[in-house]
């Protein structure tokens, strides 16, 4: 008897163990809240696609994660959000990039999937598409938080792109803002009939070049789902693209017969450098796995047999 399962993440990166309570507790509360929302929805028989979307919407609305409100800023101090969604059984998918006013990028990605013959729309045209469909938009300033203005300033001072991971010993001055390594948000879900879905959303990298696209909207990199599993990845986008991370978890299951846990562990160990990536994944059989090779990953999961977990750092 297989049951439903759900996993979600709020980003993988160099999250310091001594993260202050005032930065840690709101995120833990949010992860639990989103998990509860997702679990209720699955228990009421909502399709995994709807569940993944609603959980990611909730994470986008929360200002402490790097997606929607709370997105990190480009080098020009603006917000450029991207997202993608994929349904396992049909492999239908949708993606968007370069959004500046759309309140919930993941829902726009879903609209692209359902209302156009295309998969991926970006920048001005994606914004125009949103308006044409009456999708909720707000002034760009809505997404910008004081923490992210500070992060951008810091990144510029150090004159480098602030990645989702840093060197093992970050300079003292960065320690206060260590939780800035908050790559992305995502959710994967499966129901007892084996319907699978994955959804991922992000603001990208602090101080990224305007127009930079990461792994999140690239099907096969940040998001993937087929009849075997659903995967959402987070971390250093450029490495996740090169490693075709989300697709590779499924490919290892399909082509090498690995289990979900083995496939996910393999990808995180072998396909990407240390300190660059984490992912959440569920299988058609109701299994769940959340491996990462970074210091930490904000994550939570639950399965129908009663198991649930919420954590930031490794479990040992």
């Amino acid at each position, binding site marked *: 008897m297989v049951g439903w399962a759900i996993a979600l993440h709020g980003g993988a990166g160099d999250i310091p163990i001594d993260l202050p309570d005032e930065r840690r507790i709101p995120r833990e509360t949010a992860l639990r809240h989103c998990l509860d929302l997702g679990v209720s929805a699955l228990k009421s028989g909502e399709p995994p696609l709807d569940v993944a979307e609603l959980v990611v919407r909730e994470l986008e609305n929360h200002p402490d994660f790097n997606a929607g409100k709370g997105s990190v800023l480009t080098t020009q101090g603006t917000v450029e959000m991207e997202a993608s969604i994929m349904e396992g059984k049909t492999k239908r998918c949708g993606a968007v990039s370069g959004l500046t006013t759309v309140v919930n990028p993941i829902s726009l990605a879903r609209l692209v999937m359902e209302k156009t013959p*295309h998969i*991926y729309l970006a920048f001005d045209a994606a914004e125009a598409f949103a308006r044409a469909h009456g999708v909720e938009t707000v002034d760009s300033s809505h997404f910008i938080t004081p923490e992210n203005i500070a992060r951008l300033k810091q990144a510029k001072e150090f004159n480098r792109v602030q990645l989702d991971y840093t060197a093992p010993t970050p300079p003292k001055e960065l320690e206060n803002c260590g939780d800035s390594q908050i790559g992305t948000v995502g959710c994967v879900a499966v129901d007892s009939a084996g319907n699978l879905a994955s959804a991922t959303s992000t603001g990208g990298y602090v101080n990224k070049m*305007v*127009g930079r696209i990461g792994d999140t909207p690239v099907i*096969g990199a940040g998001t993937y789902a087929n009849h075997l599993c659903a995967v959402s990845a987070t971390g250093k986008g450029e490495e996740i693209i*090169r490693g*075709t991370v989300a*697709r590779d978890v499924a490919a290892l299951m399909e082509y090498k017969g690995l289990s979900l846990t083995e496939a996910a562990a393999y990808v995180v160990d072998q396909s990407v450098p240390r300190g660059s990536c984490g992912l959440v994944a569920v299988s058609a059989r109701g299994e769940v796995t959340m491996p990462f090779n970074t210091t930490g990953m904000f994550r939570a999961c639950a399965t129908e047999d009663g198991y649930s977990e919420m954590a930031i750092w490794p479990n040992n």
Partner: protein
Amino acid sequence: MGGWAIAVHGGAGIDPNLPAERQEEAKQLLTRCLNLGIVALRSNVSAIDVVELVIRELETDPLFNSGRGSALTEKGTVEMEASIMDGTKRRCGAVSGITTVKNPISLARLVMDKSPHSYLAFSGAEDFARKQGVEIVDNDYFVTDDNVGMLKLAKEANSILFDYRIPPMGCAGAAATDSPIQMNGLPISIYAPETVGCVVVDGEGRCAAGTSTGGLMNKMMGRIGDSPLIGAGTYASELCGVSCTGEGEAIIRATLARDVSAVMEYKGLNLQEAVDYVIKHRLDEGFAGLIAVSNKGEVVCGFNSNGMFRGCATEDGFMEVAIWE
């Protein structure tokens, strides 16, 4: 086996009624591009450099749907995208929404080599291009009369078709000789086979791949297809280099280029088996084609579409240019 190998393509999904002289022009261009690549390979130019120089030639020639000669957006403008990948360390670069850069493949290469990122798009990519000093032209440069005519036909076809699987009736330009074959929702007589590509393995066994396109005729502005997506339209690893063309959405869903390498890596298939496998099993109802080389000097083309403009050559003297099965 071993030695260098190269393949080029000019798109998949071709009108079976394509006039003989257009077929001849296409073959000549493919031959010329192959020869450019061969000369470079014989002078020990690396795979990634050969891929770039061959695709530049394909972009510059107005015949195929990339660079000059790109298919037009619904507004009659050109919006190009491209990606390139170096198999040795799996480095990659991609661009989308390019409107004034003469050679998008070279901009993709610059993203790979000169930026901290892998993928830049729209105004950000255009700004980067100017900072890098690449050749900039007006958008008009890319627009050809042929494509202005095709766009008009495509718009007429779309206004008649509600369900794109239904063949057009009484569509202007869709003469009695038109077959009911469709690609990406358009009758094949007015579909512009998307994309050009090149894959190379050099004398050192290094593989590289690149793809460039104007995209789908009459596309929505801002629509991104498979060509700039690493793993979909383009992929290269230590084992192989792959470039795909055809229905973009089908290629993305299938992660077609990545899957060729994945079945070699994870199932131990050889290049021919891998290409056959993905074309047969990964496209569902979609139509597409691809060219691929392996680090052993093999070259394979595969497609389930109605034809693919292609050419390939290997160091031992084999050379072939073809359009149909």
